[in-house]
């Protein structure tokens, strides 16, 4: 897991969007850390706020969110746009969900990958070309000199995602944020991409945040996992602890409802009743309250805070209130 010093610290991040008549409460006061060299998985469904969280780190949102995001003691949310541009792509980079739409269809792939170097570093065109070819090989694209001249539509989904990974790595960032990088890819291609990312992370000693809605995927990938629901983190734990002893009823529900190769065919699947919350109309108390079979009166009134229940295992649930000591 590497050095346990935190390389990224998110403090009380809150993101709201103003629509015509409603306010979308996308993220509601979350705190978490990314330790040096670890893979942090953030899992949640639609409306959970996971994508917005990641975009906040890169300051890709139209407004600056409230709270603080510390990268090596600098608060990213307070930096000037110029300084932020220095960081984006060079220190912190992002792998986007849909490579077909993330690339410009009218520019060759090689040129787009090289753009990052052009902006951040002062090297000759020849050196740039060399690095692009080197990186394309590293991500498993054969014949890089030829492929770099091709356009996005000439690549398959898997190959394009590799190109996207290449473009995120070209300036050797310390942190990579991956936003659903394998969603939409075929299962056998997904396996290749996962292996590639794991390999690259080891070789380059980076820290990784992986966002997904697929809990099964993170089991073999992440060191720690944060579960988001209704714009808040409801559980956070080391990967083994989360799958073996999930604490929050939502996490328990999700894990129980995924059909696995060992699920019994003759009985109905466990399923969480109800619908995911609407970020424009979040309930007063815990967002999971109306779907939770263990709900208590206090759950509807007040939002539970994220507290440590056991060793590094945090949960935001009134059920455990008596067990969690006061801390922080």
């Amino acid at each position, binding site marked *: 897991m590497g050095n346990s010093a935190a390389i990224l610290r998110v403090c009380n991040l809150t993101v709201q969007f103003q629509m015509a008549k409603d306010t979308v409460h996308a993220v509601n006061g979350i705190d978490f850390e990314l330790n040096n060299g670890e893979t942090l998985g953030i899992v949640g469904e*639609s409306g959970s706020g996971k994508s917005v969280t990641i975009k906040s780190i890169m300051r890709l949102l139209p407004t600056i969110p409230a709270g603080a995001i510390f990268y090596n003691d600098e608060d990213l949310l307070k930096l000037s746009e110029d300084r932020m541009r220095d960081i984006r792509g060079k220190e912190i980079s992002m792998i986007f969900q849909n490579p077909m739409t993330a690339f410009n269809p009218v520019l060759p792939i090689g040129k787009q990958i090289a753009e990052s170097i052009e902006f951040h570093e002062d090297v000759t065109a020849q050196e740039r070309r060399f690095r692009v070819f080197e990186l394309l090989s590293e991500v498993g694209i054969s014949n890089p000199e030829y492929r770099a001249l091709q356009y996005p539509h000439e690549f398959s989904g898997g190959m394009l995602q590799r190109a996207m990974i290449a473009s995120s790595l070209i300036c050797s960032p310390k942190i990579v944020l991956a936003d659903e990088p394998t969603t939409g890819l075929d*299962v056998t291609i997904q*396996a290749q991409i996962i*292996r590639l990312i794991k390999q690259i992370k080891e070789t380059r000693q980076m820290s990784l945040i992986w966002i997904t809605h697929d809990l*099964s995927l993170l089991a073999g*990938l992440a060191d720690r996992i944060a579960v988001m629901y209704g714009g808040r983190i409801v559980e956070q734990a080391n990967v083994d602890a989360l799958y073996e002893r999930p604490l929050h009823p939502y996490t328990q529900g999700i894990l129980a409802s*995924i059909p696995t*190769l060992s699920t019994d*065919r003759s009985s109905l699947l466990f399923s969480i009743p109800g*619908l995911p919350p609407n970020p424009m109309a979040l309930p007063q108390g815990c967002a999971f309250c109306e779907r939770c079979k263990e709900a208590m009166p206090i759950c509807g009134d007040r939002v539970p805070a994220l507290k440590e229940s056991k060793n590094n295992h945090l949960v935001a649930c009134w059920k455990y209130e008596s067990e969690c000591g006061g801390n922080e």
Partner: protein
Amino acid sequence: MNNLFEIRDLSVLFQIKNGFLKRPQSLRAVHNVSFDIKRKSVVGLVGESGSGKTTTGKAILRLIEPTKGRLLLNGKDIMHKDYDIKKLRKENQIIFQDPLSSLNPQKTILQSLETPMIIHGVGSDGQQRREVIQETLESVGLRGEILNRYPHEFSGGQLQRICIARTLVLKPSFIVCDEAIASLDVSIQSQIINLFKKLQDGYNLTYLFISHNIAVLKYLCDEIGVMYLGEIVEFAPTERLFANAQHPYTKALLSVIPEPNPAGERAKETGQELKGEIPSPINPPPGCAFSTRCPYVFDRCKVEAPQTTTYDQQHRVACHLIAQD
């Protein structure tokens, strides 16, 4: 007669225009697919992009016209020119992946549910139709208040229930579910999977369940066909498939399914993933379609397409390795 559907040598070839003067290219979407669907059973089709599973599902309903092949429904040839297509449509339905786009945004839920009934003469007047609609809505877990609303007012899960209700009001006997849960949130997927199971008993249904998610198919299906580049490479009863998969592609698929079990995932050997990309269906490899990626490939594979052999009763595989034994 136990078989609802008998499908023999089904092929679907699309012609892709290449501009005015150039010759069109052929896209081999489905190639010599044969299997049976037994009454009241659930058959699954699994595969990745280009596998042809969706095209197969639509072709057996004649939503896409097959290029060649025989389709027998209850023993009758549905490709025959005199076959009553309208009756085919009433009794054999399909549910699509994106429920929001499957509904006309300008029509109320009531209109979307009632129009098919009017067309097929289900219910003799408005009141009878309403009764059937109410009953059906209840059986899919929805309430009558939704009838005067429009599709954009509902969530993905609710919309999929509405689409399911839309097929059920016609009292079909067979439903093709084409990636019907793929676009739903994880916490909703299990609700809909359970719904499919419950409805099967309540409405005496037979399903063809198409998905890329083999774990869901293991839970729902009695038999599963594994498709690659338009062909069925392996077809077996579910337990048999998972206990004793024979085709190299099936084995590869099974080995890369992520499971929510960290220790198990770590224990998996690395380097087992299939190399290479899925070939283009416009230019399928000569010989066996899987020869470009198969870890066991030998010379015969690149030249000659394997025949389907019966490995075990009801367990069929198309692979030279198996045929040799």
